[in-house]
């Protein structure tokens, strides 16, 4: 077990204001669309309006003659540009079906939005105008939208090369599952549906490629979370020597997983830049992004729990179907597997079974979306625990207490074979219940039930666990993940005492510049303001694995800590030499080495940095300069946890449901910056409430995305959200010396089951025990109608009715 430093620190732990904010808030940040170059041309993409069709021909002649147009290329025209298809780096099973995924479709389109041609023009408007003049002759094919239909015998195949639309089956069984379930006095089984979600980072994607043809070099600027991964993958896909590719992620405006990928447009810009020898730029339109950027979730779960009559759990069994969409993007197949080990939550059990079938459909590919696999697991576990509580007649809080793993502060193995780093689940729950005023809320609920109030109150609880910082790399290999789980940091101490920290993480809103400055400032005893943090450029930070999965602090931040330790070690050798004492006679505290017993004899790290630079008087064998790099491959994951409580008010006449109280108590181990943690929790809960109550990507039977813009894909705003009451407990991780766990996804993982459990709780007196996410007003109303014996017809969408289409499909609230 790593030792966690307990001494008070100047910066770490406090809510230091973010260094990033002044330029972000005053509009001086440099996003991808702020980049412009002399002679730069614009790229626009012609996309298939059909979900599944054969391409008979692509006629580019008319578009080629339009004003400003410099080139129009079909998939066939560009076929020679690719050394390989777009990468999938996580083939989760040996016999997984891996379809070829060309950046521009050659013979067939497989989802609405699939690129079919590329237009290059002098201005963006000219490029977009010319896309309308490209004539594509499509032969429409049958469309598979629904996973069950896709798996039915004889279903139309998304990929002709394969026998069927099943992509893979992944399984993990522990214990005698059948025996436990066959002999359990109580078994509860429910089906949960996770709608498709559209990530909606506030900044759309975009790419600029700047070629240097004489040198054969290319700089690719991309709004990406993964510049390092992108560099390697672009080299492989477009066939450029990797040392000739430099990827720069400028200021990036959010990702939520949607920019953790290697996209067609990145390959296209590099290929066209190479072909034409001039800088080219592509910026995604928002409505284009709804089709061309990965979606999240789209999973159906059959979830079962086995228990005794008291509700003591004996087993969990989960059977998933996960919609891959039409192709496998970077980590598409692995997303459900990120949750595969968490379908027992924070509860003890004797038998465990998880199976996931990946399915191809004619829809936009799915991939990582904030939480990635863990929200699905948490939702299933926390919903089924409530169902079990109802079945055995227990309060859901009591049922959870009965089943919690006992507190532990040394890593302990759980049923799946993972080792949870540390956990104390009861204390978070106790604190949450107190902050929530649980008993008072239950009393208010009873009052409303007894009086038959039209507005009923429901209370939901979610005691979640998640896993962050995927590592060590060997374990990732056993999961067939193609990359490592390490990250890197370099610290450079300048002769003037200033410090540059170079990180392999790729922040896009997380505030790494601030948190990393806090860590370095405390370790080296330099002012916070004197630390510069560099990131996001593969020429400046050549080593890195980027930012996703709440990994940055627990991997990259820890690498930085170790690099600082190396600096201190080297500086100590030099300081001892200069002070003419043995190293053992020096004490180190907050940047100063002092001689034990003679504290006025001392050297600071800054002074040593100058000596190391002049190199006039270095100990024998010591290299000049004070710069160290560390690459950290963690020995284990980290496992943040916590308890969220939610109260909703349901208008039983209209179905309108509002969150009226929300209490979160999170345990992400040690905190570096409390304000950043708070921000992550707020944003995460908001995104989770969105998933639970508002957002859903809806396709019609032809594979047309009905929720095609922000007007009808319902991202909630602050006006829909309650005040979040957040609090924390602190159980240091045993995985790393900082004791940190990760907080980027916790809110999104914890909150959906809390909200839906609350909604079901409000409606339990009506005999309602299930409503699919998102619990929209209509879904709640329909459940009430069904419960009351009223007839509710299907929610089929009639696209020809008044007010549909345009009437509801431009800007929100758009009265002229």
């Amino acid at each position, binding site marked *: 077990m790593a030792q966690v430093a307990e001494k008070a620190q100047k910066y770490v732990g406090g809510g230091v204001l973010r260094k990033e904010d002044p330029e972000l808030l005053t509009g001086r940040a440099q996003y991808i669309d702020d980049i412009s170059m002399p002679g730069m041309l614009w790229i626009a993409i012609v996309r298939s309006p059909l979900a599944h069709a054969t391409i008979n021909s692509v006629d580019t002649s008319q578009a080629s003659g339009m004003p400003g147009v410099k080139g129009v290329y079909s998939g066939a025209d560009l076929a020679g540009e690719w050394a390989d298809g777009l990468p999938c780096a996580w083939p989760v099973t040996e016999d997984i079906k891996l379809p070829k995924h060309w950046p521009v479709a050659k013979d067939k389109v497989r989802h609405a939005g699939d690129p079919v041609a590329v237009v290059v023009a002098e201005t*963006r*408007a000219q490029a*977009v*105008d010319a896309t*309308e003049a490209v004539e594509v002759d499509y032969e429409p094919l049958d469309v598979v939208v629904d996973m069950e239909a896709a798996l039915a015998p004889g279903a139309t195949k998304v990929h002709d090369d394969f026998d069927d639309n099943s992509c893979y089956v992944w399984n993990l069984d522990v214990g005698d599952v059948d025996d436990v379930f066959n002999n359990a006095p109580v078994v509860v089984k429910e089906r949960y549906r996770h709608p498709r979600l559209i990530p909606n980072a506030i900044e759309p994607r975009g790419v600029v490629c700047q070629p240097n043809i004489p040198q054969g070099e290319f700089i690719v600027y991309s709004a990406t979370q993964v510049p390092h991964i992108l560099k390697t993958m672009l080299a492989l896909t477009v066939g450029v020597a990797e040392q000739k590719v430099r990827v720069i992620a400028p200021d990036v405006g959010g990702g939520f997983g949607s920019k953790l990928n290697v996209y067609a447009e990145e390959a296209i810009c590099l290929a066209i830049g190479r072909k034409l020898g001039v800088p080219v730029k592509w910026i995604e*339109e*928002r*409505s*284009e992004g709804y089709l061309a950027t990965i979606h999240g979730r789209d999973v159906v779960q059959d979830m079962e729990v086995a228990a005794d009559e008291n509700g003591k759990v004996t087993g969990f069994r989960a059977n998933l179907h996960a919609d891959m969409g039409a192709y496998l993007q970077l980590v598409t197949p692995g997303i459900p597997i990120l949750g595969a080990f968490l379908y027992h939550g924070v509860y003890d059990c004797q038998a465990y079974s998880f199976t996931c079938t990946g399915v191809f459909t004619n829809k936009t590919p799915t991939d990582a979306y904030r939480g990635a696999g863990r929200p699905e697991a948490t939702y299933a576990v926390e919903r089924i625990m409530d169902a079990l509580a109802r079945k055995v007649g227990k309060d859901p809080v009591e049922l959870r207490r009965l089943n919690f793993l006992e507190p532990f502060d040394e890593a302990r193995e759980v049923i799946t074979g993972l080792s949870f780093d540390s956990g104390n689940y009861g204390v978070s729950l106790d604190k949450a219940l107190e902050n929530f005023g649980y008993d008072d809320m239950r009393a208010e609920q009873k009052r409303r039930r007894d009086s038959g109030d039209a507005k009923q109150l429901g209370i939901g609880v979610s005691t979640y666990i998640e896993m962050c910082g995927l590592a060590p790399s060997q374990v990732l290999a056993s999961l067939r993940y193609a990359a490592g789980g390490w990250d890197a940091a370099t610290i450079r101490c300048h002769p003037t005492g200033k410090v540059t920290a170079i990180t392999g993480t790729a922040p896009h809103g997380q505030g790494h510049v601030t948190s990393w400055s806090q860590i370095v400032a405390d370790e080296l005893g330099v002012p916070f303001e004197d630390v510069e943090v560099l990131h996001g450029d593969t020429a400046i930070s050549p080593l890195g694995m980027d930012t996703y999965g709440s990994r940055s602090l627990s991997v990259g931040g820890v690498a930085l800590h170790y690099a600082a330790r190396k600096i201190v070690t080297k500086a100590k050798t030099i300081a001892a030499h200069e002070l003419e004492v043995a190293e053992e006679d020096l004490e180190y505290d907050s940047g100063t080495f002092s001689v034990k017993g003679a504290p006025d004899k001392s050297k600071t790290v800054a002074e040593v940095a100058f000596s190391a630079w002049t190199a006039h008087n270095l100990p024998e064998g010591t290299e000049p300069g004070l710069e160290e790099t560390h690459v950290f491959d963690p020995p284990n994951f980290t496992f943040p946890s916590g308890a969220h409580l939610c109260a909703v008010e349901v208008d039983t*006449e*209209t179905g*309108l449901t509002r969150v009226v109280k929300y209490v979160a108590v999170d345990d992400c181990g040690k905190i570096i910056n409390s304000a950043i943690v708070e921000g992550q929790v707020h944003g995460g809960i908001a995104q989770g409430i969105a998933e639970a109550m*508002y957002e*859903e990507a*809806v396709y019609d039977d032809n594979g047309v995305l*009905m*929720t095609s*813009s922000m*007007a*009808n894909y*319902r991202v*909630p*705003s602050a*006006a*829909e959200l309650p005040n979040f009451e957040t609090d924390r407990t602190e159980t240091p991780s045993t995985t790393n010396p900082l004791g940190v766990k990760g907080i980027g996804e916790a809110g999104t993982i914890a909150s959906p089951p809390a909200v839906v459990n609350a909604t079901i709780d409000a409606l339990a007196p009506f005999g309602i025990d299930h409503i699919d996410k998102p619990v*929209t*007003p*209509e879904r709640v*109303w*329909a459940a009430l*109608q069904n419960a009351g014996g009223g007839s*509710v*017809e*299907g*929610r*089929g*969408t*009639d696209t020809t*009715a*008044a*007010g*549909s289409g*345009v*009437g*509801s*499909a*431009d*800007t*929100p*609230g*758009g*009265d*002229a």
Partner: protein
Amino acid sequence: MIPAEFEYELAESGDHALELLNQHGDDAKLLAGGHSLLPMMKLRLATPSLLVDVGRLHDLSYVREDGDAIAIGALTCHEDVKDSDILEQHCGIVSHTAGEIGDPQVRHFGTIGGSIAHGDPASDLPTVMMALDAQFVVRSSGGDRTLGAGDFFTGLFETALGPADLLTEIRVPKLTGGWSYQKFHHRAQDWAIVGVAAVQRNGGASVALTNMNEVPMRATGVEEALSGGSDAANAANEAAQNTSPPSDPFGSADYRRDLAKVLTRRALEEAMS
């Protein structure tokens, strides 16, 4: 989100705007706040060759008393309508409803005239105008004419305005009785899934519905039931009569019909209290 190419003219006066409209006919579109037209152009659902910007005709931005009526300039933005003391005092349903539109940014750009002229059955103000039997003053090269709200909304995104007409003024009555506008939406910034306006007038009540048909409509079944002596709850059961609501991701037609009844009851209860 890149519109097709178009020309732009800034109208110096109402007459200048009419002159441009007469010159260019159907190819020209009036631009007021732009919150409906510009999104449609960005999606290339509308491709006018000329935009005539009337947004700076400040003489068409006003709220004033005119005898038994209140006159509202067509280019008054929703925020000014919302904040009008005259409306709050004499016809509160208009200022209240203006405050229910979109968000503050939308309300500072969008105009009452633009909202009415767009003819979107999901918009709130046209419904209120129907309940109030508002009068619309329309200017053309032939002079001014006045249309009643009941004759104005002719179809989905269609009104009685011709290609060379300019809506200049909205006239609403001073109210002496209660009123209510029940807007049901999922997000604050959304259009109404269903909206119901109820106004006490002439000893009875007029009731109108948002997003229950191709045009904003009066709930005549409800009004008749009320005048026949029904109470609010019973009258509200007639709210779905003769409606043809859309089905879309926000709600099925059945759901909207049921909402119309619930919201009509609530509107009547509030208006009559």
